[in-house]
């Protein structure tokens, strides 16, 4: 799946307006996404390292697998 970026941190972001609560992200990235009682995602807000290959891979699955394309992997610029 393309080039792995090893450095830096990312967070998964959801556009809550687009999100319709299909719930695919919770299945594809259980380590990053929990579901609230109405089926909308509650995403881990602490940044994750790209080096965490398992988390990054599932984040990419979630991003690609969202039927509403509401998810985005946001790369944090270093500060």
């Amino acid at each position, binding site marked *: 799946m393309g080039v792995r970026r090893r450095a830096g941190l990312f967070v998964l*972001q959801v*556009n*809550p*307006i*687009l*999100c*319709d*609560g299909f719930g695919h992200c919770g299945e594809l990235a259980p380590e990053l996404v929990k579901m*609230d*009682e*109405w*089926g*909308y995602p*509650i995403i881990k807000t602490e940044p994750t390292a790209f080096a965490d290959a398992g988390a990054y891979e599932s984040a990419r699955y979630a991003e690609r697998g969202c039927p509403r394309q509401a998810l*985005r992997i*946001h790369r944090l610029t270093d500060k």
Partner: protein
Amino acid sequence: MHEHTLPRLMHAAGSRPLTLAQHEEVFATTQRAAMQLSELDASGLTGRGGAAFPTARKARLIREQRGHNKFVVVNAMEGEPASHKDRTLLSTHPHLVLDGAEHLASIVGAKNIAVCVARDEATVVNHVERAIHERSRRSLRGPKLELHTPPWRYVAGEESALVHWLDDNESLPQYRPTRPHILRIGHAPVLVDNVETCANVGLIGRYGAAWFRGLGTVESPGSTLVSVTGAVERPTVLEVALGTPLRVILESANADPDPQALLLGGYGGSWLAASHLDLNYCNEDLARASASTGAGVIVVLPRSACGIVETLRVVRWMANESARQCGPCAFGLPAIAEDLNHLAHPSRDPMSAYKRLEERLGEIDGHGACRHPDGVVRFVRSALATFAQDFSAHAHASACAGSRANVHYASVPHLEREEELVWE
């Protein structure tokens, strides 16, 4: 008008709006140079619409943007049902507001000024229309002034919803993942400022930053308008210097001298217990009780009332005012209102409603596109802290006498049915 006294914004306010000629006479000045951003910066003015963001910083952000056709939007939507300051200001000093908007336009380089008044406010719309007409006869130069009348909704006054309406005729909030986010109409950057903020800019343009700092505290200089409602003789809009003790404000509004609590900021604001009444009315002091001045709303709650019922009424209305774009807001707020209803009128197992409520607040906080759900969560959390004793009594199924009374203090418009809500 050069002394450091009140009233400033409400100077020479009558029952009719000042005409342009009267306005020039009342706010006479020798200073005729264009206003500089540094002047605004030195004044330390913060936004009066609720967020208290430094106006100069916002203006600088828009000024640095490229664009030929920038907009200044004067936000007079006044979504808070308990707030009356914006329409009061526009019904007395419309030209002061427009002065400020023109100063802001010259600072950021905007060619258009859009004044947005809710279309339900027919009188205010008239006043603004007339003021704009007077100006158009006076000069042909300067930015183009336009009046816009979006539908009145609580979230329609949120800046991204307002810009969305101007851009696309839908008063729905937009998703803004990165902050600061530049709002745009077409490609043109937009500066959105509250009516009262603009009026203050108008005064700073006339009398300067040093004069402006003559009232208020170091961190929040100047004066502000507060709308006092609830247990008062009559609802009033007062102008107070920031940093005035809360008791003094209550006294001059002829409010209940021994209230149970105050609702501060607005319906996305917070309750303040009576034990904090010695605080001063400015953000740095109120922050100690995790409250803020917000949109200048003060609702006085007397001891006879039930804080939970008042909270319920507000939350139920706020839930209905959700734009229903985001799941956590569309489903979460009615769920919170339902839990509060179980607590306010305890029937079956109020304790589990109490526990569920606390869980749900955490699930909703920060999960909407705009700050509407966050405001409700903050409001309910402050109610949980302020009325902790009442909540535990209600949770043990012993409701207070106030919850059965039919007198209410936080004014809430009637609930509209979902299909009747107008967004465009």
